[in-house]
């Protein structure tokens, strides 16, 4: 327990998390800090390239470790079960309408790049190694939940969702070829091809400044999360509690699954963080296209202003502790 408190405090006192809190507070006190949108987008691209590339180089060094197929299976099971559990809880306990159930479930089943990146920074600080292919697993876990959730809405809704048909092409493009999937897989493959020698030439850009750049990105994320604070009233008590409870439940399912697949502790930790995270880049766009009747104030506020801060501030050390003690 002492170790957990030490880890949790160390995490909260890390520059990345403190800059996130600064960003959050700066919007509350209405400071005029502004990070241009183009820079935010460029930083998001940087992290996807950095983790994909590093993963690819690790694979080229160590080959595909034994856990790969178990990991693929694990990621698919998590991607399919988490939206299903979320949907049923929202529908039968929260009494939320089917369309909003589907929209929220898609977010909680899909994954967050920035939460994953923060978990990697957490492992970096502790000098803990993880499998190279985990970046690929992240990309693999982005889309299934979106499709499962839309399918659930169709199964549970008596009236047809007429927009689905006309927007099918856009939905497919948004879910399967969105920037994070293309960049993660693309960088992973490039990393595998160029290997360690290629890594030497880009290391000063893609590896060394990783945690430093994350402080800037999390400052921006803090500001974006802080801007949504006014939407809390619309979200209500049940959904606010759901946004904290669901990541923990998803994390417990992922820990259970990962232990059945005999994955390494660090990989299991990253899987747990992925399962606990909720998407706020890929899923909102796909859901807005597929389920326009759903209320974006619910899913964006829950995902961005509640679950994301909870995960990076408290979730990450909790999941790390659980894995180290239960696994």
């Amino acid at each position, binding site marked *: 327990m002492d170790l957990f408190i030490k880890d949790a405090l160390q995490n909260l006192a890390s520059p990345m998390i403190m800059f996130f809190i600064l960003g959050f507070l700066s919007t509350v006190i209405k400071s005029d800090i502004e990070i241009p*949108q183009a820079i935010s987008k460029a930083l998001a691209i940087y992290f996807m390239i950095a983790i994909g590339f590093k993963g690819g180089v690790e694979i080229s060094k160590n080959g595909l470790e034994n856990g790969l197929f178990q990991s693929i299976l694990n990621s698919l099971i998590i991607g399919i079960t988490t939206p299903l559990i979320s949907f049923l809880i929202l529908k039968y306990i929260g009494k939320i309408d089917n369309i909003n159930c589907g929209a929220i479930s898609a977010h909680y089943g899909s994954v967050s790049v920035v939460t994953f990146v923060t978990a990697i920074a957490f492992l970096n600080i502790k000098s803990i190694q993880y499998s190279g292919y985990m970046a690929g697993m992240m990309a693999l876990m982005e889309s299934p939940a979106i499709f499962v959730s839309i399918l659930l809405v169709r199964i549970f809704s008596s009236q047809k969702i007429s927009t689905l048909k006309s927007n099918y092409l*856009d939905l497919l493009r948004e879910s399967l070829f969105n920037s994070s999937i293309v960049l993660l897989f693309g960088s992973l493959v490039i990393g595998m091809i160029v290997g360690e020698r290629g890594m030497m030439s880009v290391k000063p850009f893609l590896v060394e400044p990783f945690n430093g750049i994350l402080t800037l990105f999390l400052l921006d994320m803090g500001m974006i999360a802080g801007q949504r604070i006014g939407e809390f009233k619309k979200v209500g008590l049940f959904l606010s509690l759901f946004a904290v409870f669901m990541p923990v439940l998803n994390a417990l399912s992922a820990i259970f699954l990962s232990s059945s697949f005999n994955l390494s502790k660090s990989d299991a930790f990253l899987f747990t963080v992925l399962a606990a995270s909720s998407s706020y*880049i890929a899923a909102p766009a796909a859901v*807005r296209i597929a389920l326009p009747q759903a209320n974006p*104030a619910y899913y964006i506020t829950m995902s961005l202003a509640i679950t994301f801060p909870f995960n990076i501030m408290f979730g990450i050390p909790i999941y790390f502790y659980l894995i180290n003690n239960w696994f």
Partner: protein
Amino acid sequence: MKKLEIIIEAVEKRKVCRLLDELNVSGYTIIDNVLGKGSHFTRSGSELSDVMKNSMIIVVENDEIVSKIINVLKEEVLNFYSGKLFLSDVQSVD
């Protein structure tokens, strides 16, 4: 000649352009990240996804095509998404 200003959620921009192409519109201008406040949400434009952002598409065409565009957009897009259409008379000078 008429000028149609289409303010639409950014996630639907690709679809609107596709519909315009299908109607053989000779050209259009797109302005991204159109900010403001409407009956649905404040359009902040500060999110990482395109949700909560607006784009504006400007089309100048003859009356017949413009009325077709309006009908198609009302049916295919504005039925489900927030947005605004503004129509005005315009004179092309070049």
